[in-house]
């Protein structure tokens, strides 16, 4: 087949690339048209065979992805047998593989994601609104857009270096400034007086700020896409009725784009849950049995208001970090612990993603342009 196409590379010139077809080909020229049945028959059959083989190869590579997914999940569930039990979720880490649990990592990831979302959603959606709705095509805006595209390709570990050098050092400076001072916090009905608020340099906020930088390009891109799908007629109609530009954005465009924005934001934030590399670069704890702020159950969020102030400034570990730590333990019994950790992590990811799916489903039913 391939020798019929004299220059495989010339195929770039779209229409010319069809010259591989047999009608213009050598074999068709040499034989009279009638022999198409006898001599050309074999030729056609081999061409059809090639086409069929190619289709099977493509189908194989697509379904191989499905097979890998099934094998991966099966291998993990199979490995987790022996440790995956309710007390795996209620225990904190331990040197004994029979007692080690993921509670500290679960709470660490919870606080990290809470603050990562709090930082990245306003900044991410704000940037997207600026780029899509306000910015004119200036040099500066073009620089921002190119820069965003490149930031999305920066390995997450590089953000870890940035977080270690900038955020962690700043946290250390703040810690020395406030160390030993009295801090009074008011939370709802509770008035809390803390004699001393310990601030750690490798705290949750430092981790969350770093993760924010990691996911920000994705959050911005997802929000931009959602804003772009809002038809221009809505903007024009709003402006024509005398609304200002900001009123149009805030009252019309953002509500219309909200389902898309929230789906995108949830999906990109869930990426941060699986990130371990930047957190390890920050010096997050790999082995700890302490939950941030000492809060170990959802009920304690209400009963220990003083600890709520402590948690963001406390040291932490996260689920992927604990999984990494268990995976590299030489004791083979930790394999089941690591696999159980992965099961918990995947369940958390799955439930977050299904929230996004539900949002997308209901939104697509309600809104029709």
């Amino acid at each position, binding site marked *: 087949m391939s020798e019929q196409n004299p220059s495989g590379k010339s195929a770039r010139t779209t229409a010319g690339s069809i010259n591989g077809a047999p009608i213009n080909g050598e074999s068709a020229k040499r034989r009279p048209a009638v022999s198409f049945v006898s001599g050309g028959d074999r030729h056609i059959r081999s061409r059809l065979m090639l086409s069929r083989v190619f289709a099977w190869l493509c189908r194989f590579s697509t379904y191989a992805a499905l097979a890998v997914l099934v094998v991966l999940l099966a291998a993990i569930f199979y490995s987790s047998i022996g440790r995956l039990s309710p007390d795996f979720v209620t225990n904190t880490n331990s040197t004994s593989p029979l007692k080690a649990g993921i509670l500290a990592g679960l709470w660490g990831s919870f606080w990290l994601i809470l603050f990562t979302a709090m930082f990245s959603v306003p900044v991410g959606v704000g940037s997207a609104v600026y780029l899509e709705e306000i*910015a004119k095509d200036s040099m500066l805006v073009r620089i921002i857009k190119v820069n965003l595209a490149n930031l999305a390709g920066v390995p997450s570990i590089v953000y870890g270096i940035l977080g270690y050098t900038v955020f962690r050092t700043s946290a250390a400076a703040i810690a020395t400034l406030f160390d030993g001072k009295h801090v009074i916090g008011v939370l709802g009905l509770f008035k809390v007086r803390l004699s001393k608020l310990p601030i750690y340099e490798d705290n949750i906020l430092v981790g969350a700020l770093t993760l924010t930088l990691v996911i920000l390009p994705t959050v911005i891109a997802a929000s931009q896409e959602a804003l772009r799908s809002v038809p221009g007629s809505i903007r024009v109609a709003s402006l024509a009725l005398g609304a200002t530009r900001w009123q149009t954005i805030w009252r019309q465009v953002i509500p219309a784009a909200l389902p898309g924005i929230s789906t995108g934001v949830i999906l990109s934030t869930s990426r941060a849950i699986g990130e371990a590399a930047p957190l390890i670069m920050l010096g997050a704890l790999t082995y700890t049995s302490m939950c941030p702020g000492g809060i170990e159950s959802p009920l304690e969020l209400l009963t220990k208001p003083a600890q709520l102030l402590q948690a963001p400034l406390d040291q932490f570990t996260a689920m992927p970090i604990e999984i990494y730590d268990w995976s590299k333990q030489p004791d083979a019994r930790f394999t089941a612990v690591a696999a159980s950790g992965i099961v918990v992590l995947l369940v958390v990811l799955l439930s977050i993603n299904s929230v996004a799916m539900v949002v997308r489903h209901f939104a697509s039913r309600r809104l029709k342009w």
Partner: protein
Amino acid sequence: MTMGKLPAWAVQRVSRRHEKLIQTALFLCAALSVLTTAAIILVLLGNAVYAPGARNAFFEQVSLWEFLTGTHWKPIDGPAGRFGIIPLLSGTIMVAVIASLVSVPAGLGAAIYMSEYAAPREREFLKPVLEILAGIPSVVYGFFALKFITPWILKPALGFLGLELGTFNALSAGIVVGIMVTPLIASLSEDVIRSVPRSLREAAYALGSTRFDVSVRVVVPAALSGILAAFLLAFSRAIGETMAVVIAGGQQPIATLNPLRGAQTMTSFMVHASTGDSAADSISRMSIYAIGIALFAITLTINLISGWILRRYREVYQ
């Protein structure tokens, strides 16, 4: 409609200052990304090339020539330390090449299948499968490589051929990184393949082409720039991939291209060094910044080339 029936916000007077203020705030959000890039570059250069104050930057202690050409990486403080990037670079490239060998055929095959062959319903089923594969965290793939692929697939297969395989090896790390970036190649390639106009396909069919001819001789060449750009992006992603390589690839910085042994990549060295307990301004710790520059420069260059190919060689159809 009388004014009284309008909601309060619609009749309130809006000051120009208020509008300007909001727009400025939004601009600052967008400008934060430029600040991030600047901060990354400043932090890396400020610790690797020239450090203000009493600390010594990495390249003030190790020459650039030694760093780029040295074939030994022994990041320890004192005179015994050797800082040549070649072992880390060879490990990184080996893993990325193995990943490409896995992901390029698989990703392109999947893209062609989903755009040219699959029925819409089949596609709707396959697309989420790839999305899930892309959404699984890196540590999970590391575990999969170390505890499943190496002992249950590669060890028996290579043992059958009489080859010795280490517990930590670049091969299994490369394979899982390849699995991780396959969805990226598949979805980016599928997008460009779908944007090839229908008329080209129909013209080719009319001339008697088989589906193979249409896919390989017409559609793929027409979408080639986008496909190449996707390959490059995936390659750069594989270079920056961390946790899977840390877990499955081992920690031996040896200048080798033997994928059956353990290898340390640039990223896995950075994780290894940051979990060590050396002092913050020791040279073994400062070497993280030097490797960081190399990693940042390599991935950025590949991404820029990818973007350039996409812009320069894009086929524009009416």
